[in-house]
């Protein structure tokens, strides 16, 4: 399976600001001066060695993660990240019908507002199915495109062939992929998905708070058990997490403890807080690495800071 992150921001789309961009340029130039750079051929390697938060950005698009198996394409959530994903599919699959299953965790804006800009959904030949456990899932998506809010109604998106109303906790199949669901603690409810294919499992568990850590939150630990990859809502620092009790999000430190308990192999932090800069996200990620080193001697858990374009193959 191949996982690709197209949107990693939580709550609202957050483009890089000019101030942040200038700051990156300034820091890069200062480091270039220090390094004594004096010829163009030195720059690619120099850029490669810059700290992550200078040479990259986590990105500002809201949640969207693509999972490709041999025959199927799953798309988790339709935040603004689904727009570039759609454009990419159009380029890749010229002339061929696009098949995709969009699995919605819930219907907060940051998880659905990209759908009207998902170009493949407008092409009648395509075959797109939308899944969700929330009541009246089709109506919820339809109303987002009521004329008061958007000029083009859902019915024009003729590539969308079906809405599948799931029940909470339901297990189902898409082709040869097995999918399990679990309900997560979040205002209005949120669904976590487990994808099992070819002996590997990926869990998409965004928008969730884990308040009851003691005794360990058993159903969710069991759900995470031995997963190859868990995509985890780490919107806040631990401190802010407690401050913002019941806002329905989590932190890196809680994710690490749960992943260690459940024997998870890879853990990707996503749904980044809109007010956190790349430098802050990187700092939080470094601290998460430190925390992991302190908590576990054997350390075969691998951590990822999700950013736009990050791919993980399993």
């Amino acid at each position, binding site marked *: 399976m191949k996982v690709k992150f197209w949107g990693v921001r939580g709550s609202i789309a957050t483009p890089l600001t000019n101030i942040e961009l200038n700051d990156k340029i300034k820091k890069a130039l200062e480091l270039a001066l220090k390094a004594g750079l004096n010829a163009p051929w030195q720059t690619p390697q120099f850029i490669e060695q810059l700290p992550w938060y200078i040479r990259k950005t986590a990105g500002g698009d809201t949640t969207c993660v693509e999972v490709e198996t041999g025959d199927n394409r799953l798309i988790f959530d339709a935040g603004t990240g689904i727009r570039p994903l759609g454009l990419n599919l159009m380029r890749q699959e010229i002339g061929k019908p696009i098949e995709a299953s969009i699995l919605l965790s819930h219907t907060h804006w940051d998880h659905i507002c990209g759908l009207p800009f998902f170009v493949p959904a407008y092409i009648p030949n395509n075959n797109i199915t939308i899944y969700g456990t929330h009541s009246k899932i089709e109506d919820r998506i339809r109303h987002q495109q009521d004329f008061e809010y958007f000029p083009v109604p859902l019915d024009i998106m003729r590539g969308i062939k079906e809405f599948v109303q799931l029940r909470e906790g339901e297990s189902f199949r898409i082709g040869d992929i097995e999918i399990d669901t679990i309900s997560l603690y979040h205002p209005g409810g949120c669904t976590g998905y487990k994808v099992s294919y070819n002996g590997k499992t990926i869990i998409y568990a965004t928008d969730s708070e884990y308040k009851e850590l003691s005794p360990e939150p058993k159903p969710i630990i069991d759900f995470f058990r031995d997963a190859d990859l868990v995509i985890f809502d780490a919107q806040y620092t631990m401190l802010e997490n407690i401050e913002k009790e019941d806002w329905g999000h989590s932190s890196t430190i809680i994710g*690490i403890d749960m992943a260690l308990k459940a024997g998870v192999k890879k853990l990707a932090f996503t749904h980044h807080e809109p007010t956190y800069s790349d430098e802050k996200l990187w700092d939080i990620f470094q601290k998460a690495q430190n925390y992991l080193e302190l908590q576990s001697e054997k350390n075969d858990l691998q951590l990822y800071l999700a950013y736009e374009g990050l791919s993980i193959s399993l």
Partner: protein
Amino acid sequence: MNITEAFQENVIIVSLDGRFDANTSDAVEQFLRVRISESKFQFVLDMANVPYISSAGLRVILAVVKELRRDNKGDLRIANLQKTVAKVFEISGLNNVLGIFKNPDSAIQSFTD
């Protein structure tokens, strides 16, 4: 996890012995909440014998501190952190918001300052 307490004036010194994690943090929280319900609001948490703390332990400390500081009722202050536990406090940023002291005496003293 062994929890013992001692009193000094209005301050309760709570000594923990064992790992402060998902298996034990409930007991610590219960213990503190019972004392809070008895209108005790000044605590020193002596962690000399805590070799390990996880997010569940951090969560209890933060939740109790948040409760105690509401309306300026009181506080919970930390003493005697072991080296790795101190590092966890640092990494999680808790050291920026909590009163952390070398030993219980200075923590107790801080309530009268």
